[in-house]
């Protein structure tokens, strides 16, 4: 089992604080895709000095922040992020069609992709597209492409579901989005590296490593 490289902070992080942690960990000059939902918060914490370039799978590199809109403003419906929210350009941005955009992801050219998750297994399997409840209308979007779409796939999530059960699990029970694709999990309780040797704890928040291992059922 890999030794912890992190430290213990005083309390569990908010999702916004967690977004700041992830932003800090993204290397200068990286090309990054931030999945819909919580991961979009990360953009607010990236500094101009980092020079991180955001990819949106609907065909753009160099995506900027959400468009500032006031009541009655004309919206540019031709420029949105993957969540269909209007955004702005950054200098040096470029546009391309959907096949080229997903070739960019599938071909492993992005440095980092950050996704939300329902469950992640210790070996990096990801479940984030369907709860598997009967009657749900299936809808995958770009989730399966994103799951394999970067050199590093990070997950950002709360570590425990509302019923208290861990979301970092031995094996996913929900339908998979990708197999062995997640390399790191950022959660409100701590940060985990998923390696071939097992789960390494990088940092813990509001809980010590021993307690965290116990609650997750991790050995050692």
């Amino acid at each position: 089992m890999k030794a912890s490289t992190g430290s213990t902070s005083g309390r569990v992080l908010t999702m916004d604080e967690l977004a700041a942690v992830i932003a800090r960990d993204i290397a200068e000059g990286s090309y990054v895709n931030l999945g819909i939902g919580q991961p979009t918060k990360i953009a607010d914490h990236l500094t101009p000095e980092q020079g991180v370039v955001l990819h949106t799978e609907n065909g753009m590199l160099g995506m900027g922040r959400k468009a500032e809109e006031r009541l009655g403003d004309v919206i540019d419906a031709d420029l949105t992020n993957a969540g269909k929210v209007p955004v702005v350009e950054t200098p040096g941005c470029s546009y391309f069609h959907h096949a080229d955009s997903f070739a960019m992801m599938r071909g492993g050219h992005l440095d980092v992709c950050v996704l939300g998750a329902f469950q992640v297994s210790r070996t990096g399997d990801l479940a984030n597209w369907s709860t598997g409840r009967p009657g749900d209308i299936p809808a995958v979007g770009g989730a399966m492409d994103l799951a394999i779409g970067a050199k590093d796939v990070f997950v950002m999530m709360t570590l425990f579901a509302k019923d208290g059960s861990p979301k970092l699990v031995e094996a996913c029970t929900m339908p998979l989005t990708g197999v062995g694709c997640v390399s790191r999990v950022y959660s409100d309780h701590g940060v985990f590296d998923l390696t071939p040797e097992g789960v390494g704890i990088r940092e813990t928040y509001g809980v010590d490593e021993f307690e965290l291992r116990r609650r997750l059922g991790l050995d050692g």
Partner: protein
Amino acid sequence: MSRAQLLDSADEAVTGIEDGSTILIGGFGLAGMPFDLIDALIRQGATDLTVVANNAGNGEVGLAALLQAGRVRKVLCSFPRQVDSYVFDELYRAGRIELEVVPQGNLAERMRAAGAGIGAFFCPTGVGTPLAEGKETRTIEGRDYVLEYPIKGDYALVSAYRADAMGNLVYRRTARNFGPVMATAATTTIVQVGEVVPIGALDPEAIVTPSIYVDRIVQVEARHYTVEGAR
């Protein structure tokens, strides 16, 4: 394909679409959605259609209106379920429409394959997931792949920014999305544009869809969206 036709109305542009056709419909949400062509298709009356699109319609306009009119037998898309996809949701729950969910990149790449004469391709997306169940898989150089087949359309309905009179197209910002790929993947590609410019007015280096892929063009009024009070 021979030279593109420049037509006076969206109704003329959609003539001849047969019942049972497979229609590729561009757009990602509102961006690049060919509203005028879809409205004309509803008036035209073709039914029993298979629609390939990223989503399954928003509100009661565009693709949602086509679904609501009962013209669509089956939808292939990546993301039918949206906050305002209630038309599709009801049809689906009532068992009145078939759905094939395809990962977004596979949707794009399968249409690209259709346009590029590729018979099938081994794709890493979706391996080991329910969407790959029953599909042929293969390990190549240590990585697992699923065999995916082309998606070809009888017609593509595409919205672009400008066309020249030959049919060369440019798009605007992220409204480009599926348009260029769908234009290559259909037997007949029908395009609505905001403006038709003279031949030679588009920069040859910046043309995204070469004229060879375009069969019919119609110029339509641009749509504008303003920020509403209740969003």
